[in-house]
């Protein structure tokens, strides 16, 4: 087990190095500079070069790359070009909080409701319960979350005045964005759970359990759900990453000061250090989540054994 994790960690470092390299050189292909080019246009080529030199942007790209990598090894992501003087690390730390909060709430909400709906649909297979749940699930997948968010904001926020329309002022500000994000999670999880449950319910060991006289609830809890949840764990990885790292649209609609719009904005303004910082952060987070998911498999499903683990 330890050896397995160790090897995976080394792989992660190599992967991150490759990502950093590719991103760095791709990013330098972006036209323009991190400065207001329309204002810089009044400068002559010489003045312009001088100006860029002050920020170390006159050096060859490979030199800049080596310098960046050196700082990275020291754990220094540099300072932002756009948010002048701010550490990229502190920007990330500031922004990730709100995004992670609404993301986590959306996952909890989405998982709970999704699994319950899925189980109901499976046990009431081909009844009106099943159909209406699946109708909701299809709706949840096909209605984009920003439409749902705008409707929520208009009716719940503006017309009914139950929750704040937008802003980030108290805990209640986080409720609507979380619900808006949870919608697609509910839909996805409900469908997965239902399909898997149906498959598991048809297995021989379910019949055995029933024959042994095990109580219905216990059958569901001990035998059915745990087996049905394995594929759910698989989709949980990417969902977690995408929700915890923020949603551009939902955050903009509800005025959440999160990390979602930072990526797009930083690319627009050629904020090199922020682009790099965010890319590395996302990648590291994604890869680590995948590792955790792989380890979780072993816990949930006794049939899966991690290679190198002694029986």
């Amino acid at each position, binding site marked *: 087990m330890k050896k397995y994790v160790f090897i995976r960690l080394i792989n992660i470092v190599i992967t991150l190095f490759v990502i950093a390299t590719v991103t760095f050189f791709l990013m330098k292909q972006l036209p323009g500079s991190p400065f207001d080019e329309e204002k810089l246009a*009044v400068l002559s080529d010489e003045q312009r070069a001088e100006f860029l030199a002050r920020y170390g942007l006159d050096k060859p790209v490979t030199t800049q790359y080596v310098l960046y990598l050196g700082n990275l090894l020291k754990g220094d992501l540099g300072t932002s070009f756009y948010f002048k003087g701010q550490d990229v690390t502190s920007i990330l730390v500031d922004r990730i909080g709100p995004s992670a909060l609404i993301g986590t709430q959306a996952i909890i909400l989405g998982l709970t409701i999704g699994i319950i709906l899925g189980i109901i649909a499976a046990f009431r297979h081909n009844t009106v319960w099943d159909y209406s749940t699946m109708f909701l699930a299809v709706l949840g997948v096909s209605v984009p979350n920003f439409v749902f968010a705008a409707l929520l904001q208009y009716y719940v926020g503006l017309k009914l005045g139950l929750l704040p329309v937008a802003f980030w002022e108290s805990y209640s500000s986080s409720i609507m964005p979380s619900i808006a994000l949870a919608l697609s999670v509910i839909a996805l999880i409900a469908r997965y759970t239902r399909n898997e449950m149906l498959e598991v319910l048809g297995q021989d060991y379910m019949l055995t359990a029933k024959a042994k006289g095990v109580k219905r609830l216990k059958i569901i809890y001990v035998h059915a759900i745990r087996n049905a949840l394995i594929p759910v764990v698989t989709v949980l990885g990417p969902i977690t990453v995408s929700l915890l790292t923020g949603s551009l649209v939902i955050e903009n609609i509800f005025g959440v000061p999160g990390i979602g719009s930072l990526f797009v904005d930083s690319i627009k303004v050629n904020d090199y250090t922020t682009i790099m910082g965010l890319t590395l952060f996302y990648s590291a987070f994604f890869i680590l989540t995948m590792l955790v998911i792989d380890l979780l498999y072993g816990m949930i499903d006794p049939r899966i054994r991690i290679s190198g683990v002694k029986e």
Partner: protein
Amino acid sequence: MVKKWPKLLGVFLLGLMVILSGCNFEESSSDAKDKKGGEKTEKKAENVLNLSLDNDIPDLNQVKTTDTISFSVLNNVMEGLYRINQDNEPEPAMAKSYDVSEDGLTYTFHLRDNVKWSDGNPVTANDFKYSWLRAMNPDTAGSYSFILADYIKGGAKFAAGETAADTVAIEAKDDQTLVVQLEKPTPFFVSLTAFVTYFPLNEKFVTEKGDQFALNNQNILYNGPYVITDYNQAEGVSLEKNPEYWDKANVGVDKINLKVIKEQSTALNLYEAGDLDRVILSSADVNSFKDSKEFGTETEFTSYYIQFNLGKDPISNTNIRKALQLAYDPEVLTSVVLNNGSEPATGLIAPKMTGADGKSFRELQGDVVKPDVNKAKELWEKGVKELGKTPEITLLTADDTVSKDTGTFLQSEYKKNLGIDIQLVTKPYSGRLQTMRDNDYQMVVSKWGADYNDPMTYLDLWMSPAIPFRGNYSNTKYDELVTEAKDEVDEKERMSKLLEAEKILLQDDAVLGTLYYQGTAFLQKPYLKGMVTHPSGAPLDLKYTTVQ
């Protein structure tokens, strides 16, 4: 195995709590909550103003910052020697008056007796000297250093790193007298002292804070009508009346919230819920609110135009250029396509920009470019004859909605009026600028936002040497006129030269095709009075605002 689940859940919940505690929900949320109820009425219960900013606040370091959002915040918490008032005229602020020498080159500013920083220390002439030198010093300056260095004697060489600070002609004679010598007579210099980069800085404070200066609200010393009590780049700022401000009796609002709301539809919902007192409308919403009492429009000193590249065939042909300049009607563009409060342009200089004798530049000049389809056709045919073939033409635009719509509008107008098919090339904003610098375009939809209230901010741009970014334009007569205007002390003479320069640029040489002056449509609550927005420099001035 089963027992592990509660543990996992525990870890998960613990994580959630950590995240929650890291979210820093504001303490001040009670303000926002309390005023829910009776909001739809004409009056406001509290003396609080709520406005939105349409993007993050990038940088409150006045020396380096370049964007209008940071400018808007700083303009309300800091103050220069002069402040631009409701009528867009400079009025005495930190300074009570100034004297100018007869040649227009030496300005002596007299500071008020009782001006203080928010920590109670006096604002002195030396604070201005320190700040201005800092803004020009290549080690500390940002991309706005030119707004000082271009005018102050010795500034340009200092900003280029060629000379030392003591060669710059700024002198703090005593604590209340600041003497500045200029390179050229600059009638708008007093207005410039109201610009963000000209605000004072306290040397002791800045040195003490080092590279942490202006990164949070405690690391800024204020001398303006308000102080920042809460600052988060992604969330916005809260301002409160500055008790040390010299003119605090005339500051109308106790507390201001400027919140970052990037989505226009959200801002509109907030406005309707009473959480915002003013909102910018998207063009889609303009028609539904046009007849509302709360509706209004305003234009800023930002002109959009087609930049023709004189260095590329067939645009180098004057008749072709003139045909392309006259073949569309900007009126249709603003009223049908944009519909956002923008006004059709008949010249380069925006309306209301200063002219002479109390008249604006546009009033003095009148329309320089008038759309004329028949004339355009004639000129086109003449041009085609000169070229010997029908040329192929490509128009470059940025890839935002407004630029693309403008491009499509031009394409269809040219098709309709000249019978030609032009190609559209769209690139991201920075890609458009790069392409222009690389001289890889024939014509491009471009713009310029004024830095200060004088036609020179525009006309200066097309002076020699010819550069691709400005269409490779070079005309000795034009250069002469603008250069002479820079040296001219007599205001009327100076303006007449600038008026002629605009005519040469647009009529004789057709270097630009005029499009529109950027405008905004907004809704504003009736109880909001004295809301001042400036067409150039820092857009927002809330010193004169009241909400009762």
